[in-house]
């Protein structure tokens, strides 16, 4: 039992299970999954479908955070990618044409890669602190997205494009399949090759890893490019789901949700260790929280209060300092015990 609670995925998994069970108590049909017209429907499928962009971005964010960095610009990348794709499709003579949609997708993802490269070069080549380097794109990116859409909300009507964020393939939502493929591919690449190890080494100590012969800078750039690529796909999903590109609001604050998902999943913001499964769990927790609040009929804006409480609770539970102070103090070993604990922390 103790080994179980010590596992790094125990707390995130426990919280997710508790939240899902709470949902079942409120709505008994919560776990029911139905097959309608060859499509799967149900609350669980909804959580996966609406959580798909968040899982993707959190996945990319995990790689960046594993290197000891952070990427604040993913929300802007989401907006830019969606804006470019929609504005290209809107200019096509036939919006239904698969070729046009593929071109749009290719251009949007290509631009995302460029944005990631920009972040990566700022961090790895010029040596700017990641939080500052990506802040630049976070501030300027929404302006760029509005520049692409000319300040308008571009609506499109293209069935092939709608498949990305709202369509179904083999009964499953297409977005969920995309996420599954990306997560599985990343997991294989990271854990079956030395890549994950090298990333963790860079995150643990970039300078030391460079001295032992790891090409730290190249790996850093790679992490940011991958993160932006994930954000680009998520941008396609989000714009495809609402069939419009909104430079101002698409992916607003999703970088914060993604960072939360990563932290809830047990990845340290200091870098050097990460957990892909934890990140997916974290993203699902955040999405389940939102879905739960929608189903209970509380005004959706109030979600933020619950989010704040859950975030605080999860972070505090995972904080060694908090556990040391609060849980040890409760132990009836006399009044002397908290003092050395505090002295230790203070030292």
């Amino acid at each position: 039992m103790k080994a179980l609670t010590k596992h790094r995925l125990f707390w995130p998994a426990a919280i997710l299970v508790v939240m899902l069970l709470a949902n079942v108590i409120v709505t008994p049909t919560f776990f029911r999954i139905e097959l309608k017209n060859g499509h799967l429907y149900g609350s669980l499928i909804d959580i996966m479908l609406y959580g798909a962009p968040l899982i993707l971005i959190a996945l990319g964010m995990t790689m960046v955070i594993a290197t000891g960095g952070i990427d604040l610009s993913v929300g802007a990348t989401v907006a830019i990618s969606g804006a470019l794709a929609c504005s290209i499709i809107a200019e096509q003579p036939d919006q239904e044409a698969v070729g046009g949609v593929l071109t749009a997708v290719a251009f949007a993802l290509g631009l995302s890669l460029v944005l990631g490269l920009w972040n990566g070069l700022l961090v790895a080549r010029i040596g700017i602190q990641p939080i500052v380097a990506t802040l630049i794109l976070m501030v300027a990116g929404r302006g760029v997205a509005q520049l692409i859409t000319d300040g308008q909300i571009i609506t499109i009507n293209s069935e092939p494009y709608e498949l990305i964020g709202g369509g179904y393939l083999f009964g499953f939502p297409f977005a969920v399949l995309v996420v599954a493929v990306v997560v599985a591919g990343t997991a294989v690449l990271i854990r079956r090759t030395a890549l994950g190890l090298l990333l963790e080494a860079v995150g643990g100590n970039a300078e030391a890893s460079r001295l032992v012969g790891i090409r730290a800078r190249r790996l850093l750039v790679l992490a940011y490019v991958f993160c932006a690529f994930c954000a680009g796909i998520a941008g396609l999903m989000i714009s495809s789901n609402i069939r419009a590109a909104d430079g101002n609001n698409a992916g607003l604050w999703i970088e914060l949700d993604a960072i939360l998902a990563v932290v809830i999943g047990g990845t340290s913001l200091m870098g050097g260790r990460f957990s892909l499964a934890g990140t997916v769990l974290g993203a699902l927790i955040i999405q389940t929280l939102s879905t739960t609040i929608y189903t209970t009929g509380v005004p959706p804006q109030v979600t933020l209060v619950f989010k704040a409480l859950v975030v605080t609770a999860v972070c505090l539970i995972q904080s060694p300092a908090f556990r040391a102070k609060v849980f040890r103090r409760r132990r009836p070993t006399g009044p002397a015990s908290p003092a050395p604990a505090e002295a230790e922390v203070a030292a």
Partner: protein
Amino acid sequence: MKRTPQDPALPEAGDSGAGVGGSPPDSGTREASGRVAADLDARDPGGSAAAADVRQTGREAADGAGDVVSNGRAPGPLRGRFALATAGSLPLGRMARREYLPVLVTLALFVVLFATGSILYPAFGSGQIIIDLFIDNGFLLVAAIGMTFVILTGGIDLSVGAVIALSAMLSALLVEHVGLFVIPIVLAVGALLGFAMGYVIHHFEIQPFIATLAGMFLARGLCFVISIDQISIKHPLFAEWPHIPIPLPGDMFVKPTVFVAIAVLALAFWALHYTRFGRGVYAIGGNEQSALLMGLPVARTKIGAYVVSGTCSALAGMLFATYTLSGTGVHAVGMELDAIAAVVIGGTLLTGGSGYVLGTLLGVMLLGSIQTLIRFEGTLSSWWIKIVTGVLLFVFIVLQRTIAPKKSQKG
């Protein structure tokens, strides 16, 4: 293997270090050492505070590794730290003067921008425009001043925009019932939020980024708990008194809100440069470990910085409310980014320990004059403000990087 010296300011470290790091190790060692790094982290699962300290020392040692390698000695934690300390203290006199450079560049840019505006548009080049900058950006200035304290300690406060929205909302809700007492109440709420975030950050070792993010969600959520809809403000405290024009010589006028912003600025300047608290803020940002070892009240000072930021945000929220005359949960979205941008453009290092509150004033003025100029231009769309702000951020960050290469590598 290609090896470029990480730090251009220390060429000798790169040269003599080439013997150690330059020889291409075989893939076996490469993987093994990668595993060591991973093992080190695995053994310390976030660990106890003591373990975190050890890891901290390890990091510092590695930071100083460049210097140690240049002596041709084996890196050890103590020696690494020592080398770092001496390397930092040697060019201190020169660094102090170079620290002013970003502030001076901001000042120069502001002057150039203002001169350009005056040449292009005759109406631009008046003293009233400068006063208008204070009137229109007073709330941003107050929020950015609070942010300066937090950033100087090496932290960050993402809750600023949300606290502004919350205090505008609270003002709108309460002012009809309690009148003037709304001011201390709202300030207390801001201070309390700041205290809570600071307490969690310092005592439970949650990253400032995450703790203030939670604070942001909480404050925004509370806005919507108070009311989903917009509440308008009609009380003269917000609707009339702050808008009384006070005439100045030369056909100009100011509004009372400007005095509030300037008073906060003066108070912050005094607190940062002439009080023990201010010295403590700089010391913690420079090196928290050293500040602790020197016996400075780290906990009090660090939490204090967040209290200052929360209080400033609350005050900024009330100024904002005089400006918009309403409270809603969607006010001031992204204001924290403007505040951070103003602080960075004003020459404060995001790693902490270096910067000036007067630089923040210049940063706010620069951002404000860009907005004014784009409004004067008329043909340029509003999103250019964001793009120009981003470009400015880039320029200043690269500038800081070239001025203080050693410092900005931290974190």
